């Protein structure tokens, strides 16, 4: 694990995140393979499910993965944490250009982002750009806060604790 991390620190394959505007987040990363390979890993369910939920995400796994990656097609991902309860994420593909671009909606909530992933050839490698645009600033911030491991929960617990005492 540590070895992997230092390899990445030495290489140029670093994952970068940038908040482009109030409503937009962009993640970029280089992959050492041509775009059609990266597109394949993204568009075939049996390959996609091998990486979308990395093992380090504690206890969560992808229990179902249906995807019809073509313009107008739909997807549905179901996550589980060992018990019988699952959480579903779904939406449809607005635009798919093989080896170049996939655009999809995130329809599980009222304020889901529209996500665009592009695969650009850079001298035999692929620059992957993962762009999310949210309907509002608040929706983006809620999504970001949700991915900040534990922080919102910690604050909620603390608030609950503090509300029982007077300051």
């Amino acid at each position, binding site marked *: 694990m540590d070895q*992997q991390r230092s390899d*990445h620190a030495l290489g140029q*394959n*670093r*994952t*970068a*995140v940038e*908040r482009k505007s109030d409503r937009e*987040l962009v*993640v970029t*990363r280089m*992959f*050492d*393979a*041509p775009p059609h*390979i*990266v597109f*394949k*890993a*993204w568009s075939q369910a049996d*390959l996609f499910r*091998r*990486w*979308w*939920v*990395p*093992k*380090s*995400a504690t206890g969560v796994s992808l229990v179902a993965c249906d995807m019809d990656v073509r313009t107008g097609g739909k997807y549905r991902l179901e996550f589980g944490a060992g018990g019988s309860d699952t959480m579903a994420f779904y939406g449809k593909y607005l635009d798919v250009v093989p080896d170049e671009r996939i655009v999809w909606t995130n329809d599980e909530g009222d304020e889901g982002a529209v996500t665009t992933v592009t695969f650009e050839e850079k001298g035999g490698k692929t620059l*992957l750009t*993962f762009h999310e645009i949210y309907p509002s*600033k608040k929706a983006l*911030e809620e999504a*970001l*806060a949700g*991915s*900040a*491991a534990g*922080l919102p929960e910690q*604050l909620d617990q*603390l*608030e609950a604790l*503090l*509300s029982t*005492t007077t*300051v």
Partner: protein
Amino acid sequence: MVQYSPSLDLSFAALSDATRRGVLEQLGRADASITSLAEKFHMTLTGMKKHVAVLERAGLVMTEKVGRVRTCKLGEWSLDAEADWIESHRKHFEARFDALDKVIIELNQEEKNGSAKE
């Protein structure tokens, strides 16, 4: 993780009040003068000044006086929280893309082996 500054106790004491949480939420949308905050929360100017002072001590809010108007905006602590959100988002994607990298290396190798046989 988040750099809590100046101290945890001050931050959490500041967050324990509903009005002060409301003020933070409001300032998250736009900077505001103490007068407009007092109006929005139906309080006296003196009452709002006290709340803002508590938030300011905790580093949650910064104030700046321009002419006769004191404007409030989110403080460093809040900016740190955002930087932390971005960083955990990045880590999340990095773990995901490291896993994708493995799949891609494998596919790339398969394809090279395939074309070598042809």
